[in-house]
Structure formats: structure tokens, C-alpha cells
């Protein structure tokens, strides 16, 4: 019996490293401008609002809302468990920061637009993959 396909991991660089590793401490890292407070995602050490270079990863609440989602039914590769949900989540701190993710701990048919979700992290290789589940508290 062969295992289910594993998650394909991203190549990380100095800009994206915090995003993919701070989950070890249960923190979702999003780059933020130290001068004007704007969240910059995907992470770039430049603020498009005020042109500051003082942009660095910062832990956010991990709370967000489902902007959109799809329930995938096709087994694209052998042994892929279906259905599963792919979603874009907008973080509570700044809704236009959108994070691709799977919605977990929730039946696919129960996912809705605008649903309140919170980040959880799954270790995979040397990285911690952000996922979201319905807010539980």
C-alpha cells in the first residue's frame, strides 16, 4: 500500500522564509511596514504605500475569512484523497492579503463564503504549512 501523495513544498528564500517556518511556534508571519503599518504580501522588503524599506515579518492573529473556495473532486494523481477544499483566505488585519490554503477540520460541504477561520500549521519536511479551520473559540 503506497502512501497518499505528500504536499509539494515551496522553494523558500529570505523573503518567504518566515511565512513557511514561523508555524513551528504557531505563528502566522506576514510582512508589515514598520513605518505605516501596511501588510505586504507576498513578502517584499518594500512598502508600496510609503516606499519604506522597513518591512519585516510580524505575527498576525491567524484569523481570517474565506474570500473564495473550491471543492476539488478530481483525483489528479493516484491515491489523492478527495474531495478537499482549496481556498483563498483574507486575513482579519487586512482583507486584501489573501492566502491560498486548504480548509481543514471541516466537511467540504460546510465551507461558506465569508466563513471565519483560523490558522493551524502542519509540519512538512523542514517547513510548517499554514492551513485554516473554522474558528473554534
Amino acid at each position: 500500500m503506497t502512501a497518499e501523495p505528500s504536499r509539494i513544498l515551496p522553494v523558500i528564500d529570505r523573503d518567504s522564509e518566515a511565512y513557511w517556518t514561523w508555524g513551528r511556534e504557531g505563528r502566522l508571519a506576514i510582512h508589515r511596514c514598520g513605518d505605516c503599518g501596511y501588510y505586504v504580501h507576498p513578502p517584499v522588503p518594500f512598502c508600496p504605500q510609503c516606499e519604506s524599506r522597513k518591512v519585516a515579518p510580524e505575527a498576525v492573529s491567524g484569523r481570517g475569512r474565506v474570500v473564495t473556495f473550491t471543492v476539488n473532486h478530481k483525483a489528479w494523481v493516484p491515491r489523492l484523497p478527495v474531495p478537499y477544499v482549496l481556498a483563498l483566505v483574507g486575513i482579519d488585519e487586512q482583507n486584501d492579503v489573501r492566502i491560498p490554503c486548504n480548509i481543514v477540520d471541516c466537511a467540504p460541504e460546510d465551507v461558506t463564503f465569508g466563513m471565519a477561520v483560523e490558522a493551524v500549521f502542519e509540519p512538512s519536511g523542514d517547513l510548517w504549512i499554514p492551513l485554516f479551520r473554522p474558528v473554534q473559540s
Partner: protein
Amino acid sequence: MIRFAEKNTAITGVGMSDVSRGATGSALALTVDAAIEAIADAGLTRADIDGIATWPGERADGSGFSPVGCAALQDALRLEVNWYGGGGEAPGQYGAVFNAIGAIAAGLCRNVLIFRTMYEATARKTAYANSLLREGQRQAGPFSWYAPYYTYAAALQQALFFNLYVHKSGITPEQVGQIAVNQRRNAALNPKAIYKTPISLDDYLASPIIATPLRLYDCDVPIDGAAAIIVSRMDVARDLRNPPIRIEAIGSSMRYRNSWTQLAELDTQAQPRVAEMMWGRTDLKPADVDIAQLYDGFSFHTINWLENFGFCERYGAKDFIEGGRRIALDGDLPVNTGGGALSGGRLHAYGAVHEACTQLWGRAGARQVKGDPRICATSTSGGPLAGAMLLVRD
């Protein structure tokens, strides 16, 4: 009106190879077939071609997505050119056409050969080629943000956009299905189409869900094939054998965040401001358009474009396509008259521009739109990718 550079260009010839679900010849052989046919159709010879353009250029990754680039075709045909260019960082698949317009405007070229080759039918017969992801390999670049989430195909990213569109517009599966049903009906009249057996709305509704709201019949069909067009400088075009199909206006802008995750208007994709740019470069209006060849990698792209080109209001496409009569060959706005990519085969917008010219030249045989169509809107799309052209035969 300002003389925009595209107004000094015209399509003068088109070509298409055999289109199949499994070619007997190589990808390069198909490309040569399409190119030679286009050159001859324009009344030119190889010696007249002084530019080559393609999108997205050669990708030697075994996927069949773009197995032939400018260099391979140039060498196969032994062309001598003043300019060539192929690359994926462009406003959609017609980016190659926009580049050619620039090359002509710069005085570099008189006749540019533009082509697109797909070999995905053969590639997908291998183990993994229908997957964007490679087991055991790390994903770099913009797609890395999606990679860990089992995002194996563009269908999943696009389904994110389309599901939001369904949510906002209230369109029903019965309405969406009219796109697939209409195009299959048109494909039955197109000898080169892949799927010619008519489908009913019930067939559409019974087709498997890929990723909500996408059904199988919302997705284009991978093929082996190539299409080519010749874009010529207008003074050259006037002396050639076909009536010039003028490039009246283009939309090539990208005024949103250029991202598959952060794109501002997820449900309309990058199309609205591209259409706005195109209409800003012509005195023609949506009501002047006779036929439309709208990108249909997925049927929702076509639905998006009906609205974004202004053929109907925002979220009004559901009423526009209801029952399918308006978009039929004898309707107010015949759409994807050759069957499109859904039934004709995935030539990735170059099937669409080929069909546009075929109709405007009155060569479409059993599927020829009545009333001597002269004006065609055509488009490309996919998330942040979008491009548009308005084609006119005087």
C-alpha cells in the same frame, strides 16, 4: 483619432495543422504545417517573413504546453528575420501579437509569423503530465504559494475565481451549460473540431464535477496541434491576396496586482480594464460587433468576457446566455463559432483568432455566420492574464 500602432497592421493569412488527440507527427512538424499554410494563405513566401513571435516560447518540460519556440521554427524554415520574440510574461496569449505590432511599428518587420503549438494530448499519455506539480520537487516562483495545497492544475486556481463569480452573479449551472452546448453544436459543423457529437444540457449537468463549480464540459480539451497567423504592415497587407483583417484596437494593459492570489477583482479576473483599454482605442462600440471568439480555456472565461467586453451588464451574462439563442450561429452575437477550445481543441486562443479570420473571410462553410460578418472581438484570459483584440475586415 490618434493613430494607434495596431491600426497600421492587419492579419493577412492563417494556417492550422491537423488537430488531434494523438498526432502521428512531431510538434515541430505540426508547427511547420501551420506556418507554411499561413504564409501561403497570405500569398507570401518564406523569404517575405522578417519576424517571428510566439507565446509563451519553448518550454522543454515534457508537458506539451509549448514544445516549440521561435528558434526551432525559424531554423526549420530557415527564415532570415529582423526580429523575433517568444515569452510568457505578456498580457495573455495574444501577447505575441502585441509584440509583433510593436516590431512593425518600430520599423523592424513587414510580415511577422505568429504561432502557438500544443502537444498536450500526447504528453498526457505519459505518467504525470497533467499535473503542474512534480512529486519530490520543490516549487519555485509565484506558483509556490499554491503548491502545498494539492493545486495540481490551473482548473483549481480558476475554480476559485469562478466560484466567487457564481456566488456574486447567481448564475445557475443550467445557464453556464449553454456555453458548452452551443460550442458543441458549432463544432459539429467544423471538420477540424475534436468533439462533434452534440451534447444536451442534461449531458452537461451529468458531466463530472472537477472542482466546484467547474464540470468536465466547462474545460477545454488538450490536443496536439498548431495554429499560425501572419500579421503584416498595412501597406504590405493591401497588396496581398486576402482582404486585410485590420487590428482595429488592442487591450494589453495590466492595471491590477499581477498575481494569481492578490488580483483585485477575482471574479472578473484582469479583463475589465483590458476591455476598457481596447474600447478606448476605437470609435466602434460593443453593439457594432458581429461575432465574438472569446477565450474558453474554461467556459467561465467566455461568460466573464461577455460582460467585460460590454455585450451585457456586469452579472448579466446569465440572462444573455439563457437558452443559448443569442450566442448561437444565427443569434445576435455568435460566440466561438468553430466550437472553441471546449470542443474544437485547446489551441490556446490561436484557434480563436484562426476562427475569427475564417469567419471574416467567409470561409467557414457549414458554420459560416450569415450576413457577411466584418467585425470580431476576440480575447484571452486566465487570472492576471488578459488580452483583447478587435478585428475588422473593411
